[in-house]
């Protein structure tokens, strides 16, 4: 540095350096510094303690896992070769699984949109609306699709329809929360600009919010569709339709080679969904 007039700026100038040090130290008093340090140590200690205690209670044990490896390997080896003839049997139930996932996601989106709009703090029309929407979303999310399925099976009978309803409710809870959070992180500038033009609530949503959240919206929906496919495969367990019934019965009857086919088909489904989702996202975002 070839300084001419800025002698005061040189860090080697002791006075100047002292002033900078004072400034730096003024950012936090020693008490504040120790407090921050104590809080950090506290967080680490609590995390380690929680992990340790819960591991004791739930018998998390690497030794057990290692000892179990031969049994797992044995199970997998019995799946080979897969019984490809079984594919014909599960073709229709698999299709039904996809149909359940499609409708479960679609209805979930329809229900999730209004709930998400009302549960986004920055655009919710009123605190009471906001609080109620949050409560509904939490309840929907808190109950697993399997529990919903049990309830709906006893209400409307066996078959895919109770499965669709169960997925729709759980999806609405998940998606509504995602939408609300996406809306809360948008740039408020355009909203303010539209508000200033005298635009109505719905107009602001249409022009300032939807264009900003579309990429998140598509990503979340695709993700929930993937999860729904996976969830729909076990709905058969409680009689709510789909390929899950065959998965469960083959496992129960120790038909390893049939189980293998069902698993392969399910994995294929998820892979295809992921691929299509990626294509769609690339087009839209």
């Amino acid at each position, binding site marked *: 540095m070839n300084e*001419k007039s800025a002698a005061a700026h040189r*860090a080697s100038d002791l006075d100047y350096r002292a002033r900078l040090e004072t400034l*730096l130290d003024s950012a936090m008093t020693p008490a504040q510094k120790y407090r921050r340090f104590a809080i950090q140590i506290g967080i680490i200690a609590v995390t380690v303690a929680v992990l340790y205690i819960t591991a004791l209670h739930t018998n998390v044990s690497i030794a057990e896992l290692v000892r179990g490896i031969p049994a797992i390997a044995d199970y997998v080896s019995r799946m080979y070769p897969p019984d490809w003839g079984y594919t014909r049997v599960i073709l229709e139930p698999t299709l039904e699984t996809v149909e359940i996932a499609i409708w479960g996601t679609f209805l979930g989106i329809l229900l999730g949109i209004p709930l998400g709009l009302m549960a986004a703090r920055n655009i919710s029309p009123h605190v009471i609306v906001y609080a109620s929407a949050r409560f509904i979303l939490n309840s929907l999310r808190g109950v697993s699709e399997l529990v919903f399925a049990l309830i709906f099976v006893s209400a409307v009978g066996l078959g895919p329809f109770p499965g669709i309803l169960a997925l729709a409710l759980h999806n609405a809870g998940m998606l509504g929360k995602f939408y609300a959070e996406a809306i809360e992180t948008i740039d408020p500038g355009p909203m303010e600009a539209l508000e200033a033009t005298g635009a109505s609530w719905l107009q602001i949503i249409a022009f300032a919010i939807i264009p900003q959240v579309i990429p998140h919206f598509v990503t979340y929906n695709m993700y929930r569709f993937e999860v729904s496919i996976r969830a729909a495969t076990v709905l058969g367990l409680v009689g709510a339709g789909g390929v899950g019934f065959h998965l469960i019965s083959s496992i129960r009857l120790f038909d390893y080679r049939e189980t293998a086919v069902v698993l392969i088909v399910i994995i294929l489904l998820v892979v295809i969904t992921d691929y299509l989702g990626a294509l769609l996202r690339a087009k839209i975002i």
Partner: protein
Amino acid sequence: MTQSGQAPILEIKGLRKEYGSTVALHDVHLTAYPGEFTVILGRSGAGKSTLMRCINRLVTPTAGEVRFNGSLVTENKRALRLHRRSIGMIFQQFNLVKRLPVLKNVLTGVLGYKATLPAVCQMFSREEKLRALECLDRVDMAHKAFQRTDTLSGGEQQRVAIARALNQRPILLLADEPVASLDPTIARTVLSYLQKINEEMGITVLLNIHQVNYAREFGRRIIGLAGGVITFDGDVSSLTDDILSSIYGGRPEDTYDE
């Protein structure tokens, strides 16, 4: 203002950049010497940003070469990191992390000198913090060091961005329309800090700008860029209205800011 006898800090030869069918730069030749304050003047879309970004390789040129401080700027990762850390860049939109405190933003200026791990863990030494404060003090922003960056005004944020660039210990400063989103008074303040840094610290400055009045006030050497071609390169005193209309292709008055 060619300072003969000194080795050039920047030598650009036959630089060309195409974006698909758009040719943003045609065969640009440009040499800059240490200590110069050069304004690159041109209307929006002339290729100013592209030229600047070819210098630190945020943009890969289609053809031609850029020599910085004697050595060729290439894609080689290690060499590029060394080049980039001696070239500070200032952007129109400041590009600060708004949620971080001012001092943290300035500290990010030394990342090019640090190993990845301590930097990712946000560990900075007391010495580094003092240096960052000193850089802030050069733009008279030391008193705001511990505030969140988004509490500052636009002009103040741009000064913080200058401090971040200074913390890189650069020998060349690229300023890409640093005042395009600031009002004229604030813009002059920010530009005069660039001028001061050039004069007091001897850092070479390359300034992109589209307003003629700022170019006249702050530039010593002016380079006129139009349609990706250099149409003028000379001292600010020889910048006539004829030359201006060759740069702007119309009445230059349209581009005065006030």
